[in-house]
């Protein structure tokens, strides 16, 4: 029994999800509410279960997974973010036509997969976690079966995702073929024996390409805007938050633990992906008229900044990645909660940026919250989104990558333009047709909490969050 203690969070989630699946199957539409709330409770329970054994158990199951503080930090972001994705969807899917209860179950399975991703310390568990997360995600993207866009998004995501998985598997097989081991420690030892062979380099590149797809880093980002636009908004919100964290953290652990001796090999790839993501994410957003597409480019852009921290390397770099992703998730969830709130008079969701016109006059509270998320995503002080950007640049400069930092920070200026465009539409344009008034106290409370966290008051969190991310990053080295 003691062997399983470190896996308590995963056990809670997978057993709970299986049971809930049965409940969903037998209660049908009637059980949607209860299943959703039970799923939220399970996720919160799993988060609570992170305290204790899982944060210091070390390698488990012959090193398949490592339950350290790094993994716990990642899951402490992922589980609550998944819970928010369930809460936000509650009341979104019309009860009559959709299988609302299965949505929560799929999110739970995806959360288990992401939990495995952040704790994986072997190529096998890496792949299993990633696929578990992805398979659930494919279904979620096409969740609104009758909607063509949603079906298209699901199909696109699946085909491209399968391609990426293939690339990843090919890379894994190369790495295994040339080193004879699957574990990250074994890989590190193999790379440590002098200059890596061509086969190893190919394996490394393919694996990183597969991970870049999941993190939607340029040049493997093409699916992002289409899938974000087509998928139902709560699902888009989910895609934008937890899976990004899982993918970036997985890449961090793989690079720092498994590929540490080959740092020179992967660093240039990461630097390219970081800068390309920042600039393409910023430039690509310019002409967008759909808020979800715009936020898709925003997430590409933000992943680029997180990768700067990874490129910087060292404890400080890894710590800045963790800090960045933690704040990024809050900003993204907040922004998407606002998007979820956009409905016309008949209650149909609207997604055009133009529909936000003059919101500051018709719905000031909402406009203020939304603009806070935009300023924060743009990284403009005094909003808290500035601080994680500062940390990744500090890490980059600390490692001597000044040119990288300069290029990256100029990217924030370009990016600031389109975030400001949304703010301009809300504050400076004449009011358009107002949105319907909806009564969603829980969603409103979540928006409020997120807005306060990324407001200047967030600076009070620096001490705590900074110490945690430092210790979590320290557990990698």
């Amino acid at each position: 029994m003691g062997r399983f203690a470190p896996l308590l969070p995963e056990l809670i989630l997978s057993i709970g999800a299986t049971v809930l699946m049965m409940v969903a199957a037998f209660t049908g539409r009637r059980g949607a509410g209860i299943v959703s709330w039970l799923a939220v409770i399970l996720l919160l329970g799993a988060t609570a279960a992170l305290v204790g054994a899982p944060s210091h158990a070390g390698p488990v199951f012959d090193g398949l997974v490592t339950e350290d503080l790094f993994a716990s930090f990642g899951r402490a972001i992922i589980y609550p973010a998944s819970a928010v994705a369930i809460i936000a969807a509650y009341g979104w899917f019309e009860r009559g036509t959709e299988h609302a209860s299965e949505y929560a179950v799929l999110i739970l399975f995806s959360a288990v997969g992401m939990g495995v991703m952040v704790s994986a310390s072997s190529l096998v568990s890496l792949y299993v976690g990633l696929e578990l997360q992805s398979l659930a995600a494919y279904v979620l993207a096409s969740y609104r079966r009758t909607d063509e866009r949603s079906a298209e998004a699901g199909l696109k995501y699946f085909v491209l995702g399968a391609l990426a998985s293939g690339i990843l598997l090919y890379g894994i097989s190369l790495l295994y073929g040339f080193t004879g081991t699957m574990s990250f420690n074994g890989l590190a030892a193999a790379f440590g024996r002098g200059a890596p062979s061509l086969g190893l380099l190919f394996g490394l590149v393919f694996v990183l390409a597969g991970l870049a797809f999941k993190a939607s880093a340029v040049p493997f980002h093409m699916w992002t805007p289409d899938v974000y636009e087509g998928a139902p908004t709560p699902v888009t919100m989910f895609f934008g938050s937890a899976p990004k964290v899982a993918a970036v953290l997985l890449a961090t652990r793989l690079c720092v633990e498994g590929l540490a001796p080959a740092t020179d090999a992967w660093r240039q790839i990461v630097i390219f992906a970081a800068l390309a993501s920042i600039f393409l994410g910023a430039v690509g957003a310019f002409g967008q008229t759909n808020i979800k597409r715009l936020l898709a480019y925003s997430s590409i852009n933000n992943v680029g900044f997180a990768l700067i921290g990874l490129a910087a390397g060292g404890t400080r770099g890894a710590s800045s990645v963790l800090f960045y992703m933690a704040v990024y998730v809050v900003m993204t969830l907040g922004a998407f909660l606002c998007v979820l709130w956009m409905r016309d008079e008949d209650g149909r969701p609207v997604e055009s940026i133009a529909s936000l016109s003059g919101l500051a006059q018709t719905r000031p509270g909402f406009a203020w919250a939304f603009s806070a998320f935009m300023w924060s995503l743009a990284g403009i002080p005094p909003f808290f989104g500035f601080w994680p950007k500062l940390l990744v640049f500090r890490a980059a400069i600390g490692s001597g990558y000044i040119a990288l930092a300069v290029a990256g920070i100029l990217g924030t200026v370009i990016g600031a333009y389109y975030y400001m465009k949304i703010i301009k539409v809300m504050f400076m344009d004449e009011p358009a047709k107002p949105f319907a008034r909806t009564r969603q106290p829980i969603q409103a409370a979540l928006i409020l909490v997120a807005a306060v966290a990324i407001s200047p008051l967030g600076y009070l969190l620096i001490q705590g969050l900074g110490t945690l991310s430092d210790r979590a990053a320290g557990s990698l080295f």
Partner: protein
Amino acid sequence: MIAGWIQSHLLSILIFIPLIAGAICLFVSASGARWTALVATLLDFALSIYLWVQYNPDGPQWQFQESAPIGGGVNWALGIDGIALLLIVLTAFLMPICIGASWRAIEKRVPEYMGYFLLMDALIMGSFSAQDLFLFYIFFEGGLIPMYFIIGIWGGAERIKASYKFFLYTLAGSVLMLIAMLYMAGTSGTTSIPALMAYDFPKSAQTFLFLAFLASFAVKLPMWPVHTWLPDAHVQAPTAGSVILAGVLLKLGGYGFIRFSLPMFPDGSAQFIPLLFVLSGIAVVYTSLVALVQRDMKKLVAYSSVAHMAFVTFGLFAMNRQGIEGAMLVMLGHGLVSGALFLCVGVVYDRLHTREIDRYGGLADNMPGYALLFMVFTMASVGLPGTSNFVGEFLSLIGTYRASTWAAIAATTGIILGAAYMLYLYWRICFGTLRHADAAAMPDLSVREWWLLAPIALAVFWMGIYPESFIRPMRADVGRLLTRLERVVPTGDSHIVVPTMANGMHMDHGATH
């Protein structure tokens, strides 16, 4: 006990009064917001006067210090020296005037407007009193947000473009400064501004650090050729926005040079003196000529701001006492005078809703009070002895002359051109015949407008007649800066016979006291 706490947190209180008042404004009616803003800014002004009285010019360099860690190596560290003190007083003085100038002119979304204004007030106060590198950056950069809204929501026809231009220009300059700050914090291991002012960075690094800070401050000040955001922003902004932009926000650039560039990178600064002189020389001549042909009153005053700011850079990079003290006085004087000129433009704009110079003329007949005050400020802007700008410009010219004759030639040309465009403006607006019936029907200054302009006029004369009140608090700080620069000051090319020069200098300097 409470008194003691207040005494040790004066600067925090200075920042939080407008911040809290700004939050209150959002929840009250339009007139409630106006009064809240007025009371808060007056309170802040009273507090700043108290600071001025309490400030001991012979005391330690940093006074009213307080510090509390925020985390991540950043401290809520505040403290001021004489230079910051004067700029804080200037800000606190102009703020209630801005609120008053918006009393009638702003009719839509008043609570929001007042909220942004007070937020900006707080952030500017924070920038001048921050003693932590990153805290300064947060305040400095955060000040863009309220200004973006003020221009973008309450501005003129082209307001959106102007607000973007203002924001992105300034942001692009500032982010390079952030990189430099991160490097400085990493190399020296401290983020405390006083500690960094005594830290010697390697010479090679100083070059890049100076350029990075220059990118930020040159845009903010603004210097030619990165001044192009300023005319747009000024023309589109509401009157009070222009006042605060010209009066205070531009001073952040000059303050940045004094606080960061000169003491932290003396070698870097000395290396770029020729560049700075050339840019300032071009600015002073070119923008004066541009001002001469403007048809739009606000644009003219905006270009004159760029020209006046060139005296600041001339003075600062002359790296001698006259130059630096002169630069500070130019900043203070220009803060008052350009603010007042924008208010004067606002007065007639509120009546006729046009800024076309041709639509006015002969206002001296029907608006004698206005013509009088406008003349005072025109003369001050020209630099007439007895007004604030004379002292500053004269000192900064002496300083420049001691450093470089050629630079002084360019700078003095600016004085002549400055007289030309300002007097030409005044002549076209106030003298001549009342050609337009609607302009002739305009009433003279109201009581409210007198209350806005008269205090500035008094301050202008005070500074012109007894500048010692303003030089005294900063004398010791300028001295400390000069000690820091001593090593790198280049010898000037004006080969003055030393004894005569020394005597002459002494007399000039003494005369201004």
